[in-house]
């Protein structure tokens, strides 16, 4: 019984707008929960609630399924009910400045500590200089200075006096002092000295030696005296500073009572201010002693900074670098890291160039997203993370160690050995949510042994949902999206058209696509077109306009290709019949747009050793799946037509005018048809195009992109003028996937184009050649004049030729090639 073309209702599943009981989506309530993602939602709830180590989440699924939005909204809902995490700040470690201390403070207190410290320093800049201006301080200080000056003068004065008595001069040298025999106020000339009697000289030398010893003793004491002087001045300063500090520090201590880390830090600050009180004194005072800095000679202020700027820089040692705490509005943080580089994740230590050197301190430590997400949740795109050097390793290290240690990649890899900061690690309590494609998830599972330990929860988002019974829910989803994106509401016709498009995206009439990103784009664009028409509600026409416009924006390539075919630059016949030539269908996927492209496939047959040559493969233009399909053909031919003798043909198959490579097995049925045509010398109807893969039993199997393939051939036929004899053969298994465009549906309904669903090669051959395929008789032969009989005969003929050739016959393979009548006759 001949195969009948599919009806229009079989190639497009309408959504009946009348089934909706609303006038516009404005009447529909927002959708509760997540539509069609029960598995993912369950996993999300589990992963978020599970508080043990390693239960981080990997959200996998295709793009535009709302993975980010859904995961984030779940996390935010959960985070709202959680306590805000503690604040963290880095402060100066006064004992070891290269190891900044991490301070943990209750939420909201880090910012206030920073402000309090800034206020303290501001007040001390007034209070300390005032304390040092008092008469009491000046008097006590002067007394210390004078005491030490007197001590030195007394010591040296005694030596000088003794030297004078012995006619020796105390001379100042560039580095110190020296004693020499004197004549009046000058040093005695050496020649004069040498003329002195030896006894006198000896006496002078002995005197010099003795006084030199005493001088040396005093000189050796100078550093000790200086140290002592400084110590006493420092003690005095500390005492005075302490008086200025006491009240201010006391107030601070009271504010942070009970917070031990803060109190320890305040105590350290108090000690350090006592040691560095000079930082709080007016800069001018410290410079009065430096002659080179006298105004007219200036230029001596290093680095071009004013004294006040230098003072401000020096006082930065008391600042508080808040890492986490600013802008915390309650609840646990949910952070999305859009650029998950190494530094953006774990933080970094910045440097400042100064006189050619790179300087840094604790105030230049910058937090990473792990700091900001500490005590909450961090969302990262897996692909972006893996694209960043060292970022994945750093994230694993941090999760394994449960603490954030800031170090540069250079330090991590031991490439840099210069002194740098080693900030105290901050304990980490975070739930990381990676979001990525399934392929990434499975690759990580397979290749990274740490992955399973650290990301134990897979949240698998489905791209489709069942259509039956869910359309009303889907309508609510559309209503929710329209409201969320501030779009016009949709009327039932508009909703129905969107549902149909969701089915088309799903590639299955029984399903709806959950790629809500694409649906949202469609709604936005339909809203635009509705606005253009001054409509207050989005209708089916607007949705269709949006869809058409989407295609029009990106179909330049398909248009050009079709143009080339119409102009016969690319040779594709759409009428007539040819032996060894068929129209195959391929899909070109450009990422955001896919379209069907007809391709001519041709076959030639000659005597040989049973090999079907895939020319695409030979020139490395064919992929492995395509080659697999071609090899199946050999199996099919051998088993069906040459089970009891060698398959003695050599066939070549080629995609004509194909320059960009072919892969997939969807052309294997077309290749088999054309091969059979070449063997049976039966012409194939060029008004038909074929898609479908085939197995060794001759069953036609489902393929992908069926809608695009049919539409591609339809567009070509339409461009040349539909004859009513044109159509496409598709696998029967693909019928549920048909959601063809309006043009095709209309032509099918009018009987000007046909879509045939075939289950076997025999069915296909009957359609393509108009001749019965024929069933195998008990005698092992097919009915006369059937397709299969012609093929069988030709294969036997080739086998005979080969046998004769092997016995030394004169027929050489060249003469027997290519459907040659002569060859055939010779073999008969």
């Amino acid at each position: 019984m001949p195969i009948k073309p599919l009806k229009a209702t079989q190639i497009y599943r309408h959504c009946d707008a009348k089934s909706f009981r609303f006038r516009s989506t404005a009447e529909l309530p927002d959708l509760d929960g997540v539509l069609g993602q029960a598995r993912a939602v369950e996993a999300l709830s589990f992963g978020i609630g599970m508080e043990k180590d390693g239960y981080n989440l990997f959200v996998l699924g295709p793009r535009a399924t709302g993975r980010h939005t859904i995961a984030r909204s779940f996390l935010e809902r959960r985070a709202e009910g959680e306590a805000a995490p503690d604040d963290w700040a880095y402060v100066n470690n006064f004992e070891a400045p290269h190891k900044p201390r991490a301070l943990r403070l209750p939420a909201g207190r880090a910012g206030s500590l920073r402000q309090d410290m800034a206020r303290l320093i501001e007040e001390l800049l007034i209070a300390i200089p005032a304390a040092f201006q008092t008469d009491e301080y000046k008097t006590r200080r002067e007394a210390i200075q004078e005491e030490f000056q007197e001590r030195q003068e007394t010591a040296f004065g005694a030596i000088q006096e003794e030297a004078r008595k012995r006619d020796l001069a105390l001379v100042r040298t560039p580095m110190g002092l020296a004693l020499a025999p004197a004549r009046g106020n000058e040093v005695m000339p050496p020649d004069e000295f040498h003329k002195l009697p030896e006894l006198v000289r000896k006496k002078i030398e002995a005197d010099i030696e003795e006084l030199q010893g005493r001088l040396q003793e005093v000189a050796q004491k100078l550093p000790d005296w200086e140290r002592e002087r400084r110590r006493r001045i420092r003690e005095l300063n500390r005492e005075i500073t302490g008086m200025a500090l006491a009240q201010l520090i006391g107030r601070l201590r009271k504010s942070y009572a009970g917070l031990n880390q803060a109190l320890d830090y305040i105590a350290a600050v108090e000690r350090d201010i006592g040691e560095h009180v000079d930082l709080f004194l007016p800069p001018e005072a410290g410079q009065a002693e430096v002659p080179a800095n006298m105004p007219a000679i200036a230029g001596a202020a290093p680095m071009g900074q004013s004294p006040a700027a230098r003072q401000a820089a020096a006082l930065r040692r008391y600042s508080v670098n808040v890492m986490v705490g600013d802008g915390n509005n309650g609840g646990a943080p949910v952070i999305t890291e859009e650029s998950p580089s190494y530094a953006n994740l774990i933080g970094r230590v910045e440097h400042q160039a100064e006189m050619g050197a790179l300087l840094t301190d604790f105030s230049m430590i910058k937090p990473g997203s792990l700091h900001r997400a500490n005590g909450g949740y961090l969302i990262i795109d897996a692909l972006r993370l893996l694209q960043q050097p060292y970022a994945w390793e750093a994230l694993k290290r941090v999760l394994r160690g449960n603490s954030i240690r800031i170090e540069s990649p250079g330090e991590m890899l031991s490439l840099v050995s210069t002194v740098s900061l080693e900030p105290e690690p901050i304990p980490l309590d975070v739930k990381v949510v990676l979001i990525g494609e399934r392929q990434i998830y499975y690759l990580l599972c397979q290749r990274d042994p740490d992955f399973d330990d650290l990301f134990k929860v897979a949240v698998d988002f489905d791209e489709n949902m069942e259509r039956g019974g869910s359309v009303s829910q889907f309508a609510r989803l559309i209503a929710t999206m329209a409201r969320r994106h501030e779009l016009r509401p949709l009327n039932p016709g508009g909703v129905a058209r969107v549902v149909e498009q969701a089915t088309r995206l799903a590639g299955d009439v029984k399903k709806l696509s959950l790629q809500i990103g694409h649906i949202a784009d469609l709604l936005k664009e339909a809203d635009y077109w509705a606005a253009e028409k001054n409509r207050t509600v989005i209708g089916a026409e607007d949705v269709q306009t949006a869809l058409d416009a989407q295609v029009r924006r990106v179909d330049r390539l398909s248009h050009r290709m079709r143009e080339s075919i119409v102009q016969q630059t690319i040779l594709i016949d759409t009428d007539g019949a040819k032996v060894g030539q068929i129209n195959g269908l391929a899909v070109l996927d450009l990422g955001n747009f896919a379209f069907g492209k007809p391709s001519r496939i041709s076959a030639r047959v000659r005597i040989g050793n049973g090999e079907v040559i895939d020319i695409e493969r030979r020139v490395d233009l064919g992929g492995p799946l395509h080659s697999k399909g071609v090899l199946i053909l050999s199996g099919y031919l051998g088993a069906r037509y040459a089970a009891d003798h060698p398959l003695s043909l050599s066939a070549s198959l080629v995609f004509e005018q194909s320059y960009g490579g072919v892969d997939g097995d969807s052309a294997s049925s077309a290749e088999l048809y054309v091969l059979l045509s070449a063997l049976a010398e039966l012409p194939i109807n060029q008004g038909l195009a074929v898609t479908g893969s085939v197995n060794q039993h001759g069953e036609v199997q489902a393929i992908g992109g069926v809608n695009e393939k049919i539409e591609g051939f339809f567009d070509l036929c339409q461009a040349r003028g539909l004859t009513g004899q044109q159509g496409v053969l598709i696998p029967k298994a693909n019928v549920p996937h048909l959601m063809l465009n309006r043009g095709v549906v209309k032509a099918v309904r009018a009987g000007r184009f046909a879509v045939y669903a075939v289950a076997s090669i025999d069915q296909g051959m009957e359609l393509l050649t108009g001749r019965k395929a024929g069933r195998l008789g008990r005698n092992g032969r097919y009915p006369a004049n059937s397709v299969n009989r012609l093929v069988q005969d030709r294969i036997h003929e080739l086998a005979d030729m080969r046998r004769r050739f092997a016995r030394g016959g004169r027929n050489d393979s060249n003469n027997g090639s290519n459907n040659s009548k002569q060859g055939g006759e010779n073999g008969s």
Partner: protein
Amino acid sequence: MTATEASVKQRRILVAMDSNAESLAGLRRAATLASELRIELAGLFLEDINLLRMSELPGHEIILGSGSRKSTSRAEMEQQMRHRAAAARREVERLAQAFSLSWTFEVRRAGLDSALREAARSNELVCSALAPPPLPHAAARPRTSRRRAVYPHGPVRAPRPVLALYEGAEGGARVLELAQRAAQINHLPLEVLVPARAGAAGQKAVDEANRCLSEAGEPVTVRRLPQSEKALLNALAAARGQLLFLDAASQAATAERLASLRSAAKCDLLLVSRH
């Protein structure tokens, strides 16, 4: 002679330097003054004859700060002096270029104070950037070590003033004029010391000094001192000035007294000629 006429005659400031590192700081201060007065900058590097002699005599140099001994040969001492002289010459040249001044440089081997006195005879203004003689004490040690100290002279102190020694109207007016200008340039207070007898004669000297000073500028203090050497030296030590101006032709400016004054004042001396 009016102040303007005197200013025209002041054509050159001679800066006397020696091997001490502090000399270069004195040179810079003098260059500032020369720039303000638009007069020539003359560098005079004195190779102290006493140091050279000492290097050929028995004994060692005692290094302050460490107390270690160091013996220095004459050749070594001469080499050191040559290096210092070359550095001083470079600095004179650099400062002259920076301030667009004409300049000269000379190296002379002599006793410091006698050379200073002699220079004062032939130059309009002589600046002694020589190291103060012993006794050394904290303030006299190399400034680099003091700068590193946390509180070299206390965290709060008044700026060191410019000092002027007024010893009579003949040369005193010029001394006060220049001292006041130096104070204005460097935004420092001026302290005028007037050694004078008690009674009306002393008051007259103070009044004369006051008349020589202009109204404008930095704060000025005029102090009358007992007319004794000891009182003067004590006052100079207590004043802790940054520059000391005095009349090059006065009684005070003998070579011996110059040494005492340098020792007491511990700052640069500027000998002002009466030309």
